C-alpha cells in the first residue's frame, strides 16, 4: 500500500490535518513549512527562523531557502489539489526576486494549470506584508505520474 497515497486521501477527506502531509517530507520539516487552509484555499508559511537567514547583517532571508519553500509549496499543492499519488518530479523551476526578503514570516500561494496528462505548470507567489507586494514569483513544471486522477 502506498503510504503517501493513503496520507493524501486522509488529508483530502479531512481525516488528517494537511500539516501531516507537509511533515511527511524531511526537507519541509527542515525549513519548518506550515500550511493553512481556508475553505479550498491553501496558504503556505515559512516561519521566520534563524536557519533560513542568508545575510545576517541585514538580516535577510536566503533566496535559496525561499525558493526551496516555494518549490515544496507547489509540490504539496499538486498532491492535495490534483490527487497525485506520488511526489511529482520537478522539471524546471524559475524564480524572479522582486523585493528583499526580510527576517519575518513569508507566505506563498500557488495556482496550477495542467498541460496534457503528465505535466503541471505551477505559478507560485510569495509575500511578507501583503499579497499585492510579492517578494518573489516563481513558475515551475512538474512531471506527474500516469495514474493521477484530476478532481
Amino acid at each position, binding site marked *: 500500500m502506498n503510504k503517501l497515497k493513503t496520507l493524501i486521501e486522509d488529508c483530502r477527506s479531512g481525516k488528517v490535518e494537511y500539516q501531516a502531509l507537509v511533515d511527511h517530507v524531511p*526537507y519541509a520539516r527542515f*525549513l519548518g513549512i506550515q500550511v493553512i487552509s481556508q475553505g479550498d484555499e491553501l496558504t503556505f508559511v515559512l516561519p521566520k527562523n534563524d536557519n533560513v537567514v*542568508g545575510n545576517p547583517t541585514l538580516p535577510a532571508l*536566503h533566496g535559496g531557502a525561499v*525558493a526551496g519553500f516555494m*518549490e515544496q509549496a507547489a509540490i504539496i499543492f499538486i498532491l492535495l489539489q490534483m490527487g497525485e499519488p506520488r511526489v511529482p518530479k520537478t522539471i*524546471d*523551476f524559475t524564480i524572479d526576486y522582486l523585493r528583499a526578503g526580510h527576517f519575518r514570516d513569508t507566505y506563498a500561494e500557488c495556482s496550477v494549470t495542467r498541460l496534457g496528462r503528465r505535466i503541471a505548470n505551477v505559478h507560485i507567489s510569495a509575500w511578507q506584508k501583503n499579497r499585492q507586494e510579492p517578494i518573489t514569483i516563481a513558475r515551475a513544471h512538474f512531471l506527474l505520474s500516469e495514474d493521477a486522477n484530476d478532481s
Partner: protein
Amino acid sequence: MTDSSHTFTRLDICNRFLESVRHSKVLGMEVLSAEEYCVRTRLPWREDLVGNPDSGVMHGGAIFAMMDQAGGMAVTCRTFPAFEITPTIDFRLDHLRGPSAGAAVICEASCYRLTNHVAFIRLTSWEEGNEEEPIATGLATYTRLKIDNAGKVVGQ
C-alpha cells in the same frame, strides 16, 4: 585596501562568504575550489534534506539553495579582491535527472559576463563522481549593490 599583493585567495574569500551565510552553513555546503571563472561547491546528502521519503532523493530546493549560493560566489570570484553584496535577480534551474539517494551533489558556477550592475552566471550540477552526466543546469543573473563596507562581511 591595496590589492597589489593579496594575503587572501578567492577560495579564502568564498569560505568567509559561506561562513557569513547562515542558511548555506546549515545546509552543510562547502567550497571545493574558487578561480576567476569557476567555483566548485559540494552539498553532502543528508536525511533531513530529502524531498521524497520513498526514494530518499535530495530535495530540488536544497540543490537550488546550494546553486544560488555558488552563483553568488562566482560573482565574488570576478569582483575579487573586492567583495560585493550581490542579490539574485532571477534564476532558472532545469532538473535533468534525479540524483541517487545518498549521493553528494557538486556544483560548478561561472560568471561569464560581468557588467557594472549585473552579473550573468551559468551553473551545472552533477552527482559526485559522475561529472559526465549533469543532474541540473542553471542560468541566473545577480545585481551588484553598491554598498560601502560590503567587505566587512568577509572580514575586509
